């Protein structure tokens, strides 16, 4: 990229609307799967805690999906969900989110100290009611920790979707590379980082609101 400066500000100025559109698209295709993953992980996690035998096979399944290269999964899905559709990108991302969130949810549900669980039983909570009223709220710090990992990796993985035509900010990387024009690449990197930072901040705030009792010292694994 001889002589080409890293950033040509006029290009950014000219493409503000375009960049905004990509950013919004990126946020949707990366974060909606995390949300769906969460909505699936909570009931699945409760089921796995109530019936522990379910956990290993389920966790193994999602781990295998997690191990598959994202691009390969996109390509496999194209015949069913179509090229450049949101679904093609979001289905695998949902699976990745679930692969992170299921274990953190189950960890969180299991992390309730034994005396607390026994006290709950002794007070007259039935098994399901105890799970939702005692174990689930106690799992919040774990779930939020899982969400932070899942959200950031989803934001990063979503860029790959650009290779099949639906990658939000990822498109800027392909565009810049093909034209040996670094400005969109830099803009893409900055916007991806910004999106990740804001998302993380929102999650930290959510934790403080949802689990004020967790204090700062609560150790969260993973």
């Amino acid at each position, binding site marked *: 990229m001889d002589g080409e400066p890293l950033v040509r500000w006029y290009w950014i100025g000219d493409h503000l609307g375009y960049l905004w559109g990509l950013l919004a698209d990126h946020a949707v295709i990366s974060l909606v799967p995390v949300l769906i993953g969460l909505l699936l992980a909570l009931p699945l996690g409760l089921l796995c805690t109530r019936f522990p035998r379910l956990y290993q096979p389920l966790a193994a399944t999602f781990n295998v999906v997690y191990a598959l290269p994202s691009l390969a999964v996109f390509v496999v899905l194209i015949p069913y969900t179509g090229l450049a559709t949101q679904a093609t990108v979001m289905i695998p991302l949902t699976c990745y989110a679930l692969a992170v969130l299921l274990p953190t949810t189950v960890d969180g549900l299991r992390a309730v100290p034994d005396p607390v669980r026994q006290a709950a039983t002794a007070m007259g909570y039935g098994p399901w009611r105890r799970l939702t009223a005692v174990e689930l709220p*106690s799992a919040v710090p774990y779930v939020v920790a899982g969400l932070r990992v899942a959200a950031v990796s989803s934001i990063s993985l979503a860029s790959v979707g650009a290779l099949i035509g639906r990658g939000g900010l990822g498109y800027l990387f392909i565009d810049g590379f093909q034209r040996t024009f670094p400005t969109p690449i830099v803009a893409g990197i900055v916007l991806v980082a910004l999106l990740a930072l804001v998302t993380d901040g929102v999650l930290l705030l959510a934790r403080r609101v949802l689990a004020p009792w967790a204090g700062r010292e609560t150790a969260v694994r993973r």
Partner: protein
Amino acid sequence: MIRFDGAGKRHPDGTIAVEGLDLTVPAGRTTVLVGPSGCGKTTILRMVNRMVEPTSGRVLLDGTDVTELEAAKLRRGIGYVIQQAGLFPHRKVIDNIATVPHLLGWDRKKARARAHEMLELVGLAPETAKRYPFQLSGGQQQRVGVARALAADPPLLLMDEPFSAVDPVVRAGLQEELLRLQSELNKTVLFVTHDIEEAVRLGDQIVVLREHGRIGQVADPATLLAAPADEQVAAFLGRDRGLRGLGLRPAGSIALTPLDEPFAGWRLELDEAGRATGWTGHGEHRPAAAFDPGADTLRTALDATVLSPVGAAVAVDGDGRAVGIAARAAVLDALDALHALPPRDEAGHGR
């Protein structure tokens, strides 16, 4: 009233936790289970609220086999306190206390009002209500645990080593508090501890257990200390049990001599308020040691006569005014009376 009727628990792995237990826990009193680690105390406690199901025999609660009652419903009617308090970390103190009222479907306002009452009952400041458990000391957490167990006013309280995780000073305070509560509330309390001192302090009835929940002795504390059933129970009670037993006997039975009567050449000096300022005699002045026959025990009285340099202690009333003199011999007479011996010759004052 709880009755264990040949109750036993054998775990699936073959471990026998409790075998053939026959025991009656009287209503309105405190029964303490005491015994070495692993002897089945927790198991016995949990057979009552069905956290452990007996594999043989029955546990009857007011005549009904507990296994015939729905577990969750049964448990809402039984208070339960454990060693680590087990407070719900995500709930404020007030909501922790309101747990059972909430489960019983009380309306929110009534449950909260009740929880505030409980907070006061266990001696916690009102502002504690809004704290989370992690913001409390161990002793405060235990108090909240007790308040939570009492919130729905259950007639029965199960307590599994509730005070053993706090330091001795806090523990003594909590024991005091429980005695006070119990004198107001008269619950049926089944209390587990491995600390014989605690058992003696709190129990109306003490059950000394051996391996597999076998009963070594069931007795009130004074009888237990005075007359252990066998060597093993005696060994478990530890040293000085005679003296410790005196700590359970009221000092009111000690015969007093009048204040103006000199004792072995010593005369008791009083100030204007009637408080003893010391002994004078033999050209000397010596300090006085006192006890309150209305509130203190024989142990305290004996201690006062041992401490006193003249061999007699001053009996005082609740306000510290001297009411009589207790000679060492008179205290020993009171001890003899415990064993129903005839009074000593030299102490002729009427009892």
